């Protein structure tokens, strides 16, 4: 019960803290807009994202706000639909990354035994393989389903998360209140949940934004390469790639998805930065 009260109090101060800087205000505004477009945009789409409506690569006009794409579908409608897949997959990937990487980091940082080097060295091996290579390998090996995409992205991002969570845990676990709880004989679960986790949540939240924007970039890149989400599904990354052929006649077919993708990533980063700054401030004033 008390933890719920804390996180509630916490989330309110987080938002007001983020809103204290200009970057934070702009970022949060952009974030709300792009999230809204990505998640609910489809309801406002004037046309179906799959229907061929006219001349491929037609410029804006004729009721088509952003013109038509390389096979004559409405770019604006596809734009409104095309964020959902990336956002949902990136969200899932981030959650998965954190549940696996966070757990590894927590256990490694808290164990003070041989488990720590064993876990961290295996994580380091993963880190030494180039990110895109891992994804390409997995996708070509297991097919380009959404599940594979999410798994591959989290596998790539997981080592970094494990390292950050480990070092935060290591630092917190030598503090007096954790030692007092160990001396009291608290079970490991209570130590981690009551004493360690709430006190690394700041760093974790700040890092979460960063990982999220990386997953968006990774997933969009894979989609652009054509090995992720398959046509005819509307997707921003995929749209940029498939409309290359009509860049001369209707550049909006490429510019529009690029802009919303950039907006989304910039927004996540701005909010993350503002949050970190607010975190520094509150720990500095202590």
């Amino acid at each position: 019960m008390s933890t719920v009260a804390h996180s509630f109090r916490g989330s309110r101060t987080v938002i007001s803290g983020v809103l204290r800087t200009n970057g934070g205000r702009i970022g949060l505004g952009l974030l709300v807009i792009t999230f809204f477009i990505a998640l609910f945009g489809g309801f406002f789409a004037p046309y179906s994202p799959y229907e061929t409506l006219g001349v491929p690569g037609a410029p804006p006009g004729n009721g088509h706000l952003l013109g038509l794409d390389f096979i004559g579908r409405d770019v604006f409608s596809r734009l409104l639909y095309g964020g959902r897949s990336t956002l949902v997959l990136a969200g899932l990937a981030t959650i998965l990354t954190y549940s696996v990487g966070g757990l590894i980091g927590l256990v490694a940082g808290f164990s003070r035994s041989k488990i720590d080097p064993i876990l961290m060295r295996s994580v380091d091996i993963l880190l030494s393989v180039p990110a895109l290579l891992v994804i390409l390998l997995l996708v070509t090996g297991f097919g380009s389903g959404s599940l594979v995409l999410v798994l591959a992205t989290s596998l790539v991002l997981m080592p970094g998360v494990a390292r950050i969570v480990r070092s935060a845990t290591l630092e917190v676990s030598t503090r007096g209140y954790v030692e007092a709880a160990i001396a009291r004989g608290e079970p490991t679960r209570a130590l981690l949940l009551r004493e360690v986790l709430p006190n690394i949540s700041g760093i974790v939240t700040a890092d979460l934004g960063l990982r999220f924007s990386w997953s968006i970039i990774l997933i969009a890149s894979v989609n652009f390469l054509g090995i992720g989400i398959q046509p005819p599904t509307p997707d921003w990354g995929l749209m940029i790639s498939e409309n290359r052929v009509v860049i001369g006649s209707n550049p909006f077919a490429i510019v529009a998805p690029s802009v919303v993708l950039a907006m989304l990533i910039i927004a996540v980063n701005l909010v993350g930065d503002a949050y970190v700054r607010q975190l520094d401030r509150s720990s500095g004033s202590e």
Partner: protein
Amino acid sequence: MTSPTDSVLRLEGVRVGVRKGPTVIDEVTLDLRRGEIVCLVGESGSGKTTTALSAFGYCAPALSISAGEIVIDGDVIRGASQFANIRGTEVSYVPQNPSTALNPSMRVVDAIADTMRSHTKDDKERHAKALEMLGRVGLPATAEFGRRFPHQLSGGQQQRVCIAAALASDPKVVVLDEPTTGLDVVTQARILTELLRLRDEERVAMLYVTHDLAVAAQIADRIVVMYGGYIVEEGPAEEVLRRPRHPYTRGLMAATPDHVTARILEVMPGAPVDIADRPPGCPFSPRCALKVDACETTFPELELKGPNHFVRCPEWVRTEAVDWAGQVAAAAAEAADLSKPVILDIADLSAEHRTRGGVVVAASGISFRLRQGECVALVGESGSGKTTIARVIAGLHPTWSGQLLLEGEPLAARARARTREQRRRVQMVFQSPTDALNPRHSVGQALARPAMALRGLSRKAAASEVQSLLEAVRLPSRYANRYPRELSGGQRQRVAIARALAADPDVIVCDEITSALDVSVQARILELLLDLRRDRNVSLLFITHDLGVVAAVADEVLVLEKGLICESGKTSTLLANPTHEYTKQLLHSAPSLFEAIGAWDASEA
């Protein structure tokens, strides 16, 4: 009284404040002459560091000098560029922490030579001079030593390099900010001797910031006492310390523990004034025992009350002398009673750290007994293994061998392997007040947890126990709803003690619990511990590096040197007649206010 040529630094009515906010220091006027050490003393938040930094026109971010004049060697210094010119040339600075003050990638000779850039462009000449400087601060003036990096030096050597760098450009004034605070007493004594030599032989003028009156007594020609951003008393060291006229100076002296006189410390009531919320009258009035009605409304002036002795207190005549003799042996009177049962019996304990580089022995052959209601102190310098021993007893350091008995029952290495009853009976209080408490838990939650986990109290019973625990450590009951960030360091440490008490323990292991606190706060914590011993019959294992604190609290002392007990015995006997060479050295190095005042008294008689 001061010829103008003699004065190398003069602050005249200096005010430093937050822009459009409260002032941090105000009306600061002081004079520093060639070949003189002036000590700025006061507790944290008194404005002593701000004052010292203003000597070279520097302020912490968000602060600015908004009034007053800074005169260096007869010249009034104004504006950022003029100050930039005098920094490092006319005025140099020795910061508190030598390990972070030196650039780790710079050889020490380069670090020193670097400060002489404005003097000569010739690299060879600067290097030769830098080596010479090493010799001047008592370090080997060899090329080999000069080639070393900071990490290859001890803390004391690093601080000497900082002093050498500060002196290299022949400054008129050296500002030292707590230069010995992080160092061991033996090293501190050597550095202080060095500073006195520099003053006497080379006529260096020093502005020395310290919180330690005993250090000030040892080196100061004049003492400036600050409180709440104002100078409250100023005068020749001997005059101020033998006849303190401001109640705050007197209170600080009476709260300072001293290894030469084992006495119960006097506690100053209240908390230090908040600069954002000063009372309209005297800033010290809320804590002052001599307060009259006028103190609350009229701001007192700094006035001459004796030979060169300025006091900011109209009631100064009523300030009593510190009564050293009357309180002597108050702590020692509660002598160890051998008939009391032994609670903790430690025999031939050896503890080691296992690192990747191999095994480091932290302590070995440790044997001692702790009886019911008794206080045993473990004294030693950093690295002597005292904290490791504390952690072994608390079940936090599993790699040890030997015997550890709690009332005859052996204790397991890990806390978790001990029975709940054993864990309840041994509690530990940690060093740092900043991380003693979980920032996410309220005081009430922090105190209720051990009561529930170790004594099996219900949630309701624990809640009422929280109230009595807060009362026991003299905090208001409304503090149960506060979070650690809303508490001062001393209050946090009291909550940490209350958390230990929540288990209703037989033994409390206190690991340097007052070393991060101001003396007036420390005195209250020590008083609290003495009361707890009396009222609850708890035994204390008190770990400290401060012999004065030992004299104030402990019945028995164990002196640790490099993991071995080199001497042990009754506190009063051991402090008065040490036999081991190391103990003698420690006692000889530790500064004593009482001894300094005694020496002045003797020279007058």
